[in-house]
């Protein structure tokens, strides 16, 4: 059977009440029993010692002379003073019951002598007050009974002739205990009922907001993020309600953000596709060259770009650029640059072409957007490889003759910084031979991170190009193995920047 919070709370509180009351009552009643028994002992002892001489005197004065009316009056007075007294007897030192309140009601006893025997006779003949305990022991008044032990009767030597026996009743104690027990039972019952009622009310206060929260949560789960709960209290439940409302609000915002992000992602994806369309889908066939290229953006849209602008079977102009930063702004700038190079591709002078593109970029893009770029040309007839660098990474040149890789000179200024960079640009002609390999790349290659401390680095790049160049493999294979080496080095560490490579092998 499943119990709700309210039922559990009610059962728990009721059980707690019963246990607490039972333990407390048991302990309290036991203490009270002992306390009352001790009270009776002390009060009765003082009482019997005080009244015994008077009882004996009145016996002599009245009942010994048959005047039972006045004697009964005096005895009634004694009983009236002590509610714990059950019987009074007057006995002679010789060992005879002279008066017994339980039977000698209407006159002096006139029958055969009622003799005392055994231990009682011994008690009667003692000089001190003695008491017979319920356990059977006979104690002197100087010995205090064990805690809570009950007394059957006291024997008090009143005069040389008479002793008085006082029978003690614990009926009052038992009745008071019984009344106490009854009262405690009622109290426990009352507490249990009160506990049930309180737990009913309190659990209502607890479960009602929880029910409201459950309802609101169900609405949230169905996408209604406007669902709110109003809890008028100042306790934890109110905090929970406030937290729920905040959570609901945040969840709504998060979902909106997610949708927006998805939309942006889709747009970025689209932008990436568009950008990828700008990248040559096929490599041109140019005499004397083997080409291989790759571009791996760090995000959907990258800031790297390259393109081949073929102006004949024997001539090829191509470039590889890298816009500062990456992402959409860099992608837009690179796209603009790509379009510009395409538009000005009729220009044969690399410096002029570069400067034209620079001028447009400087004017049309943000002042903080720059682009490094290496613009290259190849003339198969002349077997001439030239390039103009606008602040781009140095080209790694593997010379087959030397079987060694090295860096070609750097130079120039990044595009978009100043309006005219013509004076800063220098065309470099590179003497190449068959088997040479030229690797043009963006900074994402040497700056490929393995961890937060170590990058791939130029040394490793140069060494790898040297190693691969010496293998006599195709440009495509060089590209593939070089890329693999870079990726192996990164070992899955997050790519921080776009990686772009163009591998040119002289054949």
């Amino acid at each position, binding site marked *: 059977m499943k119990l709700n919070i309210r039922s559990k709370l009610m059962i728990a509180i009721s059980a707690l009440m019963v246990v607490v009351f039972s333990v407390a009552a048991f302990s309290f009643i036991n203490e009270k029993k002992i306390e009352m028994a001790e009270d009776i002992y002390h009060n009765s002892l003082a009482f019997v010692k005080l009244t015994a001489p008077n009882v004996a005197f009145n016996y002599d*004065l009245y009942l010994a*002379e048959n*005047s039972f*009316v*006045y004697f*009964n*009056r005096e005895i009634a007075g004694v009983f009236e003073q002590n509610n714990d007294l059950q019987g009074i007897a007057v006995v002679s030192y010789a060992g005879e019951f002279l008066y017994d309140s339980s039977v000698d009601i*209407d006159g002096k006893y006139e029958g055969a002598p009622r003799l005392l025997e055994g231990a009682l006779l011994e008690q009667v003949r003692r000089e001190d007050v003695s008491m017979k305990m319920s356990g059977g022991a006979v104690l002197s008044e100087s010995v205090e009974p064990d805690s809570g032990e009950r007394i059957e009767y006291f024997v008090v030597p009143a005069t040389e002739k008479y002793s008085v026996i006082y029978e003690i009743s614990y009926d009052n104690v038992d009745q008071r205990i019984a009344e106490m027990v009854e009262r405690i039972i009622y109290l426990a019952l009352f507490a249990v009922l*009160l506990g049930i009622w309180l737990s009913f009310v309190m659990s209502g206060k607890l479960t009602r907001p929880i029910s409201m929260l459950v309802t609101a949560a169900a609405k949230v789960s169905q996408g209604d993020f406007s669902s709110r709960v109003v809890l008028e209290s100042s306790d934890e439940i109110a905090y929970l309600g406030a937290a729920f409302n905040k959570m609901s609000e945040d969840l709504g915002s998060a979902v909106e953000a997610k949708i927006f992000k998805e939309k942006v992602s889709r747009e970025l994806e689209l932008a990436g596709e568009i950008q990828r369309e700008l990248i040559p889908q096929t490599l041109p066939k140019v005499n004397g060259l083997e080409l291989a290229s790759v571009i791996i953006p760090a995000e959907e849209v990258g800031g790297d770009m390259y393109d081949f602008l073929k102006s004949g079977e024997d001539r090829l102009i191509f470039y590889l650029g890298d816009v500062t930063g990456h992402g959409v702004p860099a992608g837009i700038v690179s796209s603009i640059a790509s379009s510009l190079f395409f538009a000005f591709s009729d220009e044969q002078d690399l410096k002029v072409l570069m400067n034209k593109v620079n001028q447009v970029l400087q004017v049309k893009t943000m002042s903080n957007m720059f682009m490094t770029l290496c613009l290259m040309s190849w003339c198969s007839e002349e077997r001439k490889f030239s390039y103009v660098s606008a602040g781009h990474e140095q080209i790694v040149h593997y010379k087959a003759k030397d079987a060694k890789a090295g860096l070609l000179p750097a130079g120039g200024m990044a595009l978009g910084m100043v309006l005219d960079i013509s004076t800063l640009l220098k065309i470099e002609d590179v003497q190449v031979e068959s088997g040479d390999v030229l690797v043009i790349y963006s900074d994402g290659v040497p700056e490929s991170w393995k961890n937060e401390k170590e990058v791939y680095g130029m040394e490793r790049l140069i060494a790898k190009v040297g190693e691969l160049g010496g293998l006599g493999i195709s440009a495509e294979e060089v590209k593939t193995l070089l890329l693999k080496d870079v990726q192996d080095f990164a070992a899955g560490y997050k790519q921080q920047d776009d990686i772009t490579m163009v591998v040119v092998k002289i054949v």
Partner: protein
Amino acid sequence: MNTNWGKIVEKLFYGTFVLLFFWVGFKLFLIDYIDFDDDVETVQTLPELRVMFPDHPLTLDPVSVDPGTRQRLVNIYEALVKPDADLKMRPALATNWGLIDDRTWEFSLRKNVKFHNTSVFDVMDVVASITRMQEHEDSELKELLTSIEELEVIDDYTLRIKTFEPDPLLLQRLSMVLILPSELAYLDEINDDVGTGSYRVVQWNEEDSMIFERFDDYWGQLSKFERVSALGRVNPVERVNVFAAGEADILVAVPHEVVGALQEKGFVMNANPSLELQFLLFNFDYSLGKNKSFRKAVSLAVDQSFLADGEFVHTVKQFVSAGVFGFNPRIAEHEFDLEKAGDFVDAARLNGRTVKIHLFKNLKVLGEELREKLSEIGLKPIISYLELEDYLHSLEKGKSDIFFVGFRGDLGDSADFFDQAVKSGAAQNFANFEKDYVDELIAEASMELDSVSRRNALQKVMKAIVEDELIGVPLFEYDLIYAFRDLFDAFVRVDNVIYFDEIKLKQ
């Protein structure tokens, strides 16, 4: 449908819970503060208490001490103090009292007490009532109050009573003085009840019944019975028949012969010493009475045993009942010896002397026994059986040599008997007995405050009038037997007076 049943069960559960909660709370917190009349149900089934007495009241005037009259009057009037069941004096119209010196008592009177005629009780009512009892021509309490010297009014609710000599029995005496309103105390005769008691008389059918109604302005706790019928039947057969027919709830003075029969019928019986003693009294005004040999001869000729049944009727040897203070256990047993009695007659030359004996008409058994025995010893008894009124007249005028008299020791003290029936000139000294030394002994006993000395003095008086002076021949005492319908606690008082508001129904 299920839902409806569920709601009904739920409402029943809540309703039961609320009821249980309030019931427990009520038992726990309120029950002690609500005065439940436990007897209400029983009283509703027994709205009227009916008591059958063996006598009729003679008057409503509290100057009378006739037992039958007093029995009714104590429920109508109140005294300053009231004896409880053991004859201990309790507050009634006096709330407290004490001795200023050996002879001066101070009484504080109860306030806010109303008489049945709506007048308010104060000290002047007490003064007027005591004075009336002392001075009224028909007062039978004169002897009882001779010890009072002066009444001193301190304020409206404080009275001092000064006695001629220290009077240890003053409270007992005052318990006999029923208080009237002062404005009525001067009347010669009181014909209407005007007490402060818990009942007032609403109807009085002489020779049949006196009907009481509860006095709702009573200062104390109201009686359970709104109405009480005090029936009276002198004829024992008639008395028993009325009771057995269910026309009475309590029968007082059950004839001994029918005790067994009533027990068999399921009535609850209770035998109580009557403290009433019957005896023959010699008339000392006549020569025969003055002759000690005559008195001795008659005493020896009386056979007590023929009157006693050993169960309810007991022979006695003195003029107060065993149980009364002053009873002298050392007085010898009565001697029955016709031969010795005859010798006394012969020695005193009383053979053939006529002995006049007046008896109440119901005492023919006793009369015939006396006739037989006195005849046997040579005397010539003439027995006259008289109506009550004539008998009382004969008693007061001393018209017989021997009377049959009874005396009830209502005060539980033999001084009562000596003061009223033995002291020279006492109103009920029907023996006309006068002896100075006896008077002196009585006076000594009445003044003595020390209980032992007073007891000894009273016992001396008893010995003097029984053994030395032979003022009469003690005959017997009897137990007064009550029969109750099994509705009541069979409670009887030592003085055998029935206070209607003390009758308790069984729980």
